[in-house]
């Protein structure tokens, strides 16, 4: 097992290098085989390693590859660490990642840049695997930044469109704000505890700090800053909806299943530190619940099929943060896992719609796709069912656990009520999407032309979305047995179960049976500003543009010639002016010279007399 573990990130890395250096040499047909094959191999290795690990005693395994750097006591290595938590992430990244790569082989078959596409994708998988396997925080940071870079590259994959580049830069810079907080958290942790290896660090933290220590809280807060950036939570959530500019498989892989959940992973990985900071933990829960509600409202108003799913992703990660905040670590990871299945399914289904329907994104220009796009339709049905947490789907088990934990947790009924209302919203916006795009009058010329490589992943993900809730990696070895949630009264569970049905009923009334008109609602005096607020993502983009982006650009523009250089230019101009004056005086006229001689002499004499 020790020998196989490093091969898991190595496979996609080699795939990436082969694709980069094989450009022009490799036949086009070979590109998807290399791209998907390398991730498939990683998935296979993960299966072997995981089988051995789960069959054993669940003892963590550390593999040190080489010494990275040494500077005083700071000495991070290239070392991998495998426990039940990182194994769960490995399964998601390589398993779902492989399915999305297979799908991409069909989706990107006609794109002239498919080799570049798969190279970036493989690099992403490698970076993500390093992130989840890292034994120390510096190596984790390497993976963390690496996935951010790949996200940037893939959002801006179609680089000739300036809007894509802008979205890509926005994603990178916004998450970099969070990353900077994370880096400062690392500096603080090292300054206090003199190590950045995660396991010794956790032990040192427990020995060094008591619960509620302000330094521990500050460190946890800084790490949370990194997590909200990467996971698109308040206040750094603005980049994710724009990130939909990338090809759809990217949205499935990076912006739904894996990278955006890195923040959840980070907090779960550092759970001992967060437990020392109960106030920050409560903040995590509050951030999660506020985000899940705000994003739910925004999802309700979007018309772009991918933006609906993007806001839905923000909202679902909000649930994970809520779970983390109330200390329900396994529930957070469980929801991370089921979300990866059903959200990947939904994005790939959306990709199938977009692929079959002339790159149309607006759901109101779709309609009646039920018959014409059966595979996409059923993908959406299964995916939405799990997203809405209908009973017996995978999403039901994970979301139910979160709601129960929220009820029992420190925030009590408020957090639970927020989550509950969010569950209703989830039902509402998911059903709205389903009814508008797939039911109603068929007014399209779409025809489903999906190859086997696109259909197969959809089928597998349908199965996982339905049944994935029955297969859980036991996480007690990571989080301890204390994480068991006391049972709330039965009524609470029942209410949680029925919340999404209310949402579906409302959506059916508006968008299926059309008993009420949503247009009237949006036109009303209260509805219109609310609609605009929600549609624009609560105005955060507007605010950040005024507060940060425009002042930054303004100063850069007016100071293009560098005000400081103005001082030196002034000195130079002064010297030139003096030179001009002095040389003008040298005019060759005798009268002028005599006059200046005399006046100079008078001046000197006068000065002397006056003294």
């Amino acid at each position: 097992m020790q020998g196989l573990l490093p091969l898991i990130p190595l496979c996609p890395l080699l795939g990436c290098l082969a694709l980069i250096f094989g450009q022009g040499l490799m036949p086009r047909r070979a590109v998807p085989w290399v791209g998907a094959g390398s991730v498939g191999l990683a998935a296979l290795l993960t299966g072997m390693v995981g089988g051995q690990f789960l069959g054993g005693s669940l003892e963590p395994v550390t593999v040190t590859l080489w010494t990275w750097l040494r500077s005083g006591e700071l000495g991070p290595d290239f070392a991998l660490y495998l426990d039940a938590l990182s194994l769960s992430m490995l399964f998601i990244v390589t398993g779902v990642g492989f399915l999305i790569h297979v799908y991409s082989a069909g989706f990107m078959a006609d794109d002239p840049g498919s080799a570049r596409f798969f190279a970036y994708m493989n690099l992403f998988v490698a970076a993500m695997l390093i992130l989840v396997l890292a034994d120390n925080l510096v190596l984790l940071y390497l993976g963390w930044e690496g996935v951010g870079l790949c996200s940037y590259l893939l959002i801006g994959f179609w680089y000739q469109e300036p809007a894509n580049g802008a979205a890509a830069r926005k994603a990178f810079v916004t998450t970099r704000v969070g990353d900077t907080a994370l880096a400062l958290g690392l500096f603080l942790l090292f300054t206090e505890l003199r190590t950045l290896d995660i396991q010794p660090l956790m032990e040192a933290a427990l020995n060094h700090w008591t619960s509620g220590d302000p330094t521990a809280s500050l460190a946890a807060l800084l790490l949370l800053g990194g997590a909200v950036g990467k996971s698109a939570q308040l206040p750094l959530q603005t980049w994710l909806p724009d990130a939909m500019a990338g090809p759809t498989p990217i949205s499935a892989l990076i912006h739904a299943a894996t990278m955006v959940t890195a923040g959840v992973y980070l907090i779960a990985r550092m759970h001992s530190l967060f437990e020392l900071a109960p106030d920050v933990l409560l903040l995590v829960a509050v951030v999660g619940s506020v985000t899940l509600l705000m994003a739910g409202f925004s999802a309700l108003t979007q018309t772009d099929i991918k933006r609906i799913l993007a806001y839905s992703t923000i909202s679902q990660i909000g649930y994970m943060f809520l779970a983390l905040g109330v200390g329900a670590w396994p529930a957070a990871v469980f929801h991370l896992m089921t979300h990866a299945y059903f959200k990947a399914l939904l994005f790939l289904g959306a990709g199938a719609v977009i692929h079959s329907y002339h790159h149309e994104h607006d759901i109101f220009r779709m309609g009646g796709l039920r018959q014409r796009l059966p595979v996409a339709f059923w993908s959406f049905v299964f995916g939405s069912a799990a997203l809405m947490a209908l009973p017996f789907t995978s999403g039901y088990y994970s979301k139910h656990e979160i709601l129960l934990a929220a009820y029992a947790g420190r925030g009590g009924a408020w957090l639970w009520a927020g989550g509950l209302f969010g569950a209703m919203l989830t039902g509402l916006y998911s059903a709205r999407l389903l009814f508008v795009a797939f039911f109603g009058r068929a007014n399209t010329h779409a025809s489903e032309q999906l190859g086997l490589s696109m259909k197969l992943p959809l089928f597998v993900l349908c199965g996982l979305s339905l049944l994935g809730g029955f297969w859980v990696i036991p996480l007690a070895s990571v989080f301890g047995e204390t994480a068991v949630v006391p049972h709330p009264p039965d009524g609470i569970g029942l209410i949680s179960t029925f919340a999404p049905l209310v949402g579906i009923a409302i959506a059916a009334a508006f968008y299926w049976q059309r008993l009420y008109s949503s247009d009237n609602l949006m036109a009303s005096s209260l509805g219109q500003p609310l609609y605009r607020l929600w549609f624009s993502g609560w105005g955060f983009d507007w605010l950040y543009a005024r507060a940060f982006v425009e002042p930054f650009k303004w100063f850069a523009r007016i100071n293009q010639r560098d005000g400081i250089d103005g001082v030196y230019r002034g000195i130079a101009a002064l010297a030139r002016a003096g030179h001009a004056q002095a040389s003008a005086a040298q005019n060759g006229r005798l009268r002028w010279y005599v006059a200046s001689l005399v006046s100079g002499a008078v001046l000197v004499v006068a000065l002397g007399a006056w003294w």
Partner: protein
Amino acid sequence: MLVLLIAILAVGGLAAWYGERAGPDAPRWIALAAISLVGLLLLPYFGPAVSPTDGAWLSEIYATWIPRFGVGFHLALDGLSLALAVLTVLLGAAAVAASWTEIRDRVGFFHCNLLWTLAGVLGVFLAMDLFLFFVFWEAMIVPMALLIAIWGHEDRTAAAMKFFLFTQLSGLLMLLAMIGLVLLHHRNTGIFTFDYPVLLNAELDGDVARWLMLGFFVAFAVKLPAVPFHTWLPDAHTQAPTGGSVLLAGVLLKTGAYGLLRFVLPLFPEAAAAFAPVAQGLGVASILYGGWLAFGQDDMKRLIAYTSISHMGFVLVGVFAWNEQGIDGAVMTMLAHGISASALFMLAGGLQERIHTRDMRRMGRLWADVPRMGAIALFFSVAALGLPGLGNFVGEFLVLQGGYLVSPVITAIAALGLVVAPVYSLVLMQRVFQGTCLEPHRLSDCGGRELAAFGVLMLATLWLGLYPLPALTVAKWATAPVVELSYSGEDPPP
């Protein structure tokens, strides 16, 4: 042996000048040969046979020169000098490669100046006599200014003048401080000497030490350059030929950082410690102001020049953090930035050679035409923005960690540079290689020579990023005693 290193470059310069008679390619090959020879001569110092104790020279020569004033011809090599000498050789070769097709006029004299600049720089890194150091310091400026003034672009004369004046005036301050230091030492001990190891033990009065330290500091801060002494750099870079930019960004700026480590900290430990917050403040100002200005530029080379200012700000923060992480980080930043900035200047120069403009408003979408150049630019842009796994990250991370140990507030502000860096780096990529372009260009992608040069620089950047341990170890032979000084001088500064 050490004399030989400098002599090879100096004589090689003359040979290149006269070699032009044998054809335009002869000077290029002569220059490459001379640089490679120096590189070969440096190799043995990395051998396992050499395992120096901290602070001992790897190699040293001493000859009396002007005995009346205690001036000696004292050259010595330690880990820091060695690391920077290797960087000089690497980037010297890159500069020759970058000029291969660009320079067609007076090829011999160009390479003569190039090699003489390298010789001066190498002398700066090796001189252990203050007077000799000053001689090399001045000697490297003249051929560099000529490179700008003769082979530069449209505003070359003014830029060369500005470069010359800034460095000359600041060099004068350094000379005054040197003489002051020597006179004081003479008054206290009766010994007249410019010898660096002797002067290290000079006893200085606090107030005087502060002024002398400032004299050195300003000279090095101009060279680094740090805000507010930075304004010569964008002009010099923009106007210099590609090879000149490579030398300037890659090596000449590093002499400023080297001077801080070699002279300012060890000669004036107390004064420097008291001054550290100001110096770090200037570093932070450079990081943010440089990055901000970089974002606003339309000229591609100007943009890269301002990023240099930003990155050298990290060096200032790290050096004056004055602990192991800070100084290790500063050295790593010097090496990694030397490589990445040089590569970016080579790209800008390569583009200018192809489409005859540096104006990014007239570029765009070039990835479609020159994907290899695009990929290389991407590599070095993300190196510049501090992507982990590449050399610049190691430097900046260690600098900030070192800074945080000393002053969390200053470091938190400096860390904002991490947010600004992707803003300017990615805007560069966008404006040059992505998006749309109004002017269609027809241009050819990198050929074998360019690929080889960039390939070496990319490998070096990866090596510094993934396995920086050897470089850190070598530099630590020299910097460990400097770090120790900070502990001895920890208490007094108010």
